[in-house]
């Protein structure tokens, strides 16, 4: 939490570091700026009004993409591929410490006629999804708890991991119920932060240094906005996004292709659901694989080695960018104590949170 800083100050700090790292001057070298924000989280209508100055983007092309940061990255990719930009910048942030009533804000995203009046913790949707997932896949309840144990433990090594902890499954299962069967320790907590990425065309990137990480595939998708119409057991949006990103990157066998994965773990069961949607685990098998250590830091495929959203915290629309950041540091060999040896290929996936069925997937390589 950053009560002493404004959103604009957070953005300035993140942007300055990103420009320094990339060796670019935003006023001269960048042709497009993209911010991923939602009005209600900002407490401002038309939030792009407040974005240009601290990014060095005054009198430049800047726009809001009201979605997760990875959709912002996809937009930057399209700007570069269509030839309107050589260098593009993507920013997203969370300033949840300014929001007095986050649950109420989330509730305003429920259908105004059929669902908004429910007047409950919006995580009731997560409880429903989790129950459905467990039933359909016959996954054991405590496998979900193991996801929280793993990710919170991973976060202890991460300097950003403010929700890191050494817990056992019983502690997770016995924590307060968020929305049955989901418990509080299986539910990520929101934190503040701003994340900025600098993207460049291949030609330009070669001039900008030797620590380039390539986006080889990217996809984003949405399932129906009607909660009542969805198959709650699976993450259809992640399946669709992954199939587009894999096709673009030429990934045929995802289960053995990647060296690491940073996937959605807003809630414990989401990691299992996502791993199956990304075809990193067979249907209904993700839980057992977590339990047996396949996805541990030193396992066959480290998943959320950073600590993920459960260990580091949830950053609203910047959550996807946080996962990208952790993966990029790994592929650059700059992950410090978190470093996974010989990390060359990564998959990153995000979800926009309750009540959406929208998410994105990126395939990275170094």
């Amino acid at each position, binding site marked *: 939490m950053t009560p002493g800083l404004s959103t604009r100050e957070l953005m300035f700090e993140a942007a300055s570091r990103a420009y320094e790292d990339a060796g670019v001057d935003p006023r001269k070298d960048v042709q497009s700026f993209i911010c991923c924000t939602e009005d209600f989280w900002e407490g401002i209508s038309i939030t792009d009004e407040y974005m240009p*100055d601290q990014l060095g983007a005054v009198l430049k*092309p800047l*726009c809001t993409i*009201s979605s997760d940061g990875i959709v912002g990255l996809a937009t930057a990719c*399209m700007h570069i*591929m269509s030839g309107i930009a050589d260098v593009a910048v993507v920013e997203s942030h969370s300033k949840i410490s300014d929001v007095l009533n986050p649950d109420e804000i989330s509730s305003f995203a429920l259908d105004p006629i059929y669902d908004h009046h429910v007047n409950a913790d919006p995580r009731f949707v997560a409880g429903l999804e989790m129950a459905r997932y467990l039933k359909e896949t016959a996954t054991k309840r405590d496998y979900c708890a193991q996801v929280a144990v793993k990710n919170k433990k991973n976060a202890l090594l991460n300097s950003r991991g403010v929700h890191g902890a050494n817990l056992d499954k019983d502690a997770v299962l016995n924590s307060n119920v968020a929305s049955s069967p989901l418990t509080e320790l299986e539910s990520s907590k929101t934190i503040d932060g701003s994340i900025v990425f600098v993207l460049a065309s291949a030609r330009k990137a070669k001039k900008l240094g030797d620590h380039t990480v390539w986006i080889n595939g990217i996809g984003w998708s949405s399932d129906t*906005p009607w909660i009542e119409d969805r198959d709650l057991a699976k993450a259809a949006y992640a399946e669709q996004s992954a199939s587009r990103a894999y096709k673009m990157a030429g990934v045929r066998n995802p289960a053995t292709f990647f060296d690491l994965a940073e996937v959605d773990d807003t809630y414990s069961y989401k990691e299992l659901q996502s791993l199956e949607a990304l075809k990193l685990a067979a249907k209904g098998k993700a839980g057992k694989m977590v339990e047996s250590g396949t996805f541990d830091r030193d396992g066959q495929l480290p998943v959320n080695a950073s600590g993920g959203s459960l260990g580091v915290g949830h950053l609203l629309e910047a959550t996807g960018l946080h996962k990208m950041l952790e993966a990029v540091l790994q592929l650059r060999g700059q992950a410090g104590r978190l470093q996974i040896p010989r990390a060359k290929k990564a998959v990153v996936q995000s979800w926009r949170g309750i009540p959406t069925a929208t998410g994105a997937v990126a395939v990275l390589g170094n």
Partner: protein
Amino acid sequence: MKNRVAIVGAGMTLFRRRMLESPKELSFEATRMALDSAGLELKDIQSVVSGSAPDAFDGIHMKGEYLLDGMGGIGKPNQRVYVGGGTGVFTPIGGWWNVASGLYDTCLCVAEEKMSPLHPHPQYAFWSIFDQILERPLGTTLLWIFSLEMRRYMHKYGIKEEDIASVAVKNKGNAVDHPCAQLGAKITVDDVMNSEPICWPVKRLDVSPPSDGAAAVVLASEKIAKRLTDQPVWLDGVGWTLDTTHWTNRDLAYPEYVEKAAWMAYKMAGIKKPKKEIDIAEVYDPFDYKELHHMEGLQLAGKGEAPKMAVDGVTQRDGDLPVCPSGGLLGVGNPIAAAGMMKICEVFWQLRGEAGKRQVKKDARTGLAQAWGDLMQVGTVAVMRS
């Protein structure tokens, strides 16, 4: 540019003060009409770009998610692009990069706005656009800051209120021929001058109304477009620019951000002399003075010279440079994002010779649509060719 992008279909709903249809239904109507006009079905669409201005109008958080099914976005890549009042023209620009990048061959672009749910008046949504510390305590409204801008524009170039009023007369008159229009009317300069001052020099008839409505276009890559139609309209130039947050620090007499956005689009379209090369323009006109102000930013008139063009009839439908032949926001209505998209639709129909009674007299080959928004801060420009 990697791929040339064409508009192959357009559609819109009625623009009205209070529509009974839900935001999803309005989106559906415009989308269906655009698909029908392109001869396509939803299964032919590869990606969707949506546009809608503040969530505060509907009180729906993540409005892009809510609108998804009405816009045909289920199971597809969907992006909601957002630059305040500039969103309408920016929505097809979002579609442009979906197709120009080579990632998708067809893209549906839908803009929707339902302002009427906000009580007691849609203007209240705009309270929350101002800086929480410096501006909100003053109780600032949008009309105040526009009256400042209009006053500054008049002062700098010695422009008469009557000359500005002629724009409202033209646009409301043009809208009489638009089947979707909310405020088409034959009025006189005196009517505008005698209308109730809202925040001087802005009077009631200088301002566009709050409206509900939706509009949509279908974009396609060159290969697909040529298969679909003999009359594709090419989206050959796109541009957008955002100025500083601190609107109090700029000279309100001239919209530099519109100029920058325009040159980005002109450069892409290979236009060197906009005054000569642009045949018709749908310039953003939420206020009558804004049409003139924007014509100058768009390089269609010299600084301070646009009012004379309006008074001399140059911008009439039968003039040398028809501006807002649709009737614009002043006449057709102003459901924020949908209003900008309506301008794109109008240029599409004009360039195809399908504008019916609104068809301009000259042979129009190159058209322009522009929108503007935020804290008098953003310009979005699209250049189209038949």
